[in-house]
């Protein structure tokens, strides 16, 4: 942090000003003039929070994607299918057991198992052949999509929100003043806040695991130089399987999360794949902080876009990607 400020005083100042401005916008009571030019404060706040929680969902998916890429140089284009698969499994399990948490765990395990099978049965045999691996993952994603359509049909499913997560909560932000001067507080769905908290917790745990544990050390070494790591006698194949399982499991888990606060249906797989591709390109391939940053940016861009320029909302995300590719092609947080 201090290092960044010392190297880039100008950019640091700009970022600091932007953050202060944002905080002021969040906490201040908006004057009628501001409401006239920016729209109502509730809309702004809701877009902000929705963007952040959507970013949390994207982070869950993209972190697994970026880990797999960083370690194995494998662009897993079937990652979206794992998301949808996990979501459907979570939906079925949730219906059977009436427990959201069990659904989460089972979806994680099921998707992880599929991930292990993919690594052991397919990718092991074509290591280092990037193009072939990518094509195989495209093929897999098509097969998965058809299998899922076959077994679940084209209907929209929603994972039932558990009672302890549903309903609104009041946030300590004033969105408007009533005519008698009484402040109207912002209400927000509790489930989205829980998802955000969960994603942050997971991000911190992943960062700790990567930077403070032995396995994390091995993974980081593998990202930097896979051959050297293997030469020192580490069983890289095991680490590959582990990471693939974890990344796939995260996608499955995200499927349940996405199915809870949005919904599941065919086509969701490619949509989420596209989003996570943009996320990792913006954030930098193979970097967890990059995935977090990219997910936040893409989530916010989608939500603010849909509020303030609905017709061009889809384009905004890609404009950001193009801008990042033009200015900083390696991604915002990547080292190389």
């Amino acid at each position, binding site marked *: 942090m201090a290092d960044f400020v010392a190297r880039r005083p100008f950019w640091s100042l700009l970022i600091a000003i932007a953050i202060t401005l944002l905080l002021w916008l969040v906490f201040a009571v908006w004057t009628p003039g501001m409401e006239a030019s920016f*729209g*109502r404060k*509730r*809309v702004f*706040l*809701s*877009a902000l*929070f*929705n963007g952040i929680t*959507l970013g949390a969902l994207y982070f869950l998916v993209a972190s697994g994607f970026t880990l797999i890429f960083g370690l194995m140089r494998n662009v897993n284009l079937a990652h979206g299918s794992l998301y949808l698969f996990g979501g459907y499994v979570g939906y079925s399990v949730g219906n059977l057991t009436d427990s959201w948490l069990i659904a989460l765990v089972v979806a994680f395990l099921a998707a992880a198992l599929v991930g292990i099978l993919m690594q052991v049965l397919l990718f092991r045999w074509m290591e280092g052949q990037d193009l072939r691996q990518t094509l195989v993952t495209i093929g897999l994603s098509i097969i998965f999509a058809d299998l899922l*359509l076959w077994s679940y*049909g*084209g*209907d*929209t499913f*929603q994972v*039932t*929100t558990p009672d302890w997560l*549903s*309903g*609104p909560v009041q946030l300590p932000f004033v969105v408007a003043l009533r005519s008698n001067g009484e402040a109207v507080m912002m*209400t*927000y*769905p*509790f*489930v*989205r806040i829980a998802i955000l908290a969960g994603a942050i917790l997971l991000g911190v745990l992943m960062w700790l695991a990567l930077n403070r544990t032995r396995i994390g050390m091995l993974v980081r070494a593998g990202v930097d130089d896979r051959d050297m790591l293997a030469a020192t006698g580490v069983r890289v194949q095991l680490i590959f399987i582990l990471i693939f399982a974890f990344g796939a499991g995260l996608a499955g888990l995200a499927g349940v999360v996405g199915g809870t*606060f*949005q*919904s599941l*249906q*065919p*086509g969701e797989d490619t949509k989420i794949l596209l989003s996570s591709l943009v996320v990792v390109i913006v954030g930098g391939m193979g970097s967890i902080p990059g995935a977090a940053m990219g997910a936040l940016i893409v989530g916010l861009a989608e*939500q603010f876009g*849909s*509020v303030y320029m*609905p017709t061009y909302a889809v384009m905004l995300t890609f404009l950001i990607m193009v801008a990042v590719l033009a200015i900083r092609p390696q991604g915002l947080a990547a080292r190389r």
Partner: protein
Amino acid sequence: MRKALLAAVAASTLVMAAGAANAQDKLKIGVMATLSGALTSGGEDGVRGVQIAAKQAGNKIAGREIEIITVATDASPDSALRAARKLVEQDKVQLIIGPLSGSEGIAMRDYSKTVPNLVMINGSSGALETTYVNPSPNFFRFNSDGAQWMAGLGEYVFKDKGYKKISVIAEDYSFPYTQVFGFALGYCKAGGQIAQRQWVPLGTKDFGSVIANIPDDVDAVFLGLGGGDAVNFLNQYGQTGGKAKFIGGSIMADQTVLSSRGAAKRLLVGTPTSSGVADAWDDPKWQAWVKTYQEAFPADKRFASPSLFATNYYNAFNALAIAMGKINGDLSDGGAKLRAELARTELDAPNGKVKLDENRQAIATTFITEVAELPNGDLTNKFIKTVPNVSQTMGLSAEAFKAVGLPSRTNPECKP
């Protein structure tokens, strides 16, 4: 050995060819329905409607065995075009029932003009333009359009419900445009105000910002959503703890949503809506249709009662069967006789009598209803009243209707 093998291959080829010849004797009917995307549940019910009608007809039309070929679309015009091309070019189908969704209908109007011998009977699509702007001589619609389905609702919510000012949330394509158009015609004339219109893409997942954008000072929110979008919206609206009153579009408060899983649909109880069907209408013909529908499929494979889609597809098949019966199934003239016959076919349908106008567009009954909860927990549309013989011009003269313009995001304006 080799010769035997070759002979076997030749024989089986012959058998297959014979099979193909047999199949050609059957009358092929293509059915297009939205079996993926946001309107899936409606598409599935439409297919059920056709299946029931075909079963009632003994799987025969004009004495010929029929073969039904179902193709899936996803509510987008290009998916409908692909599906129709597949039916016409690959399956050699001359009769098509479909499509289901508004913009698909407009695409099919144009496509059917390019295939002169095709006869297309609309499934359930309800955009105004489909039969109003440059109508196709091959395209017949035995259901009302989205505006006709709204006839009388605007006056009803203004006068009886007292909703003086509303906002609109609807999907951004032709059918919801038409619905809001039809609603606004009556509502604004009665004196109502539309404070805001929010148009969301079909298949929207995240309604958070849209919900936050609903103005505080409106009496009710008109919802022109359908299928998965409707369920998504209600779920997310419930999560924010909102308390607004709703007015339902024709496929918002219909069985595709009222039969969905989860508790969110309960938000709709008390919502006034209007459509081409009313779940709890006590007319004997309607009750008989409900009973037929319920007996045809097990309870978990259908809705509590037939949706608008099932009824429209059922009617479309019956219209085709009646007209084909009159001309003894003679399609040798490229369908000219069938087209002439269809144009004068009058249908005594479960949801009231239907006849066609000169654009081959239905003049039919509209039902104003209100969502209510049955003792067993199912939701139903309680019958309020009918608006009989609604024509496409909504009771206006042709010129006056033309002067209003076509449905769009902003038309008709609704200024006090």
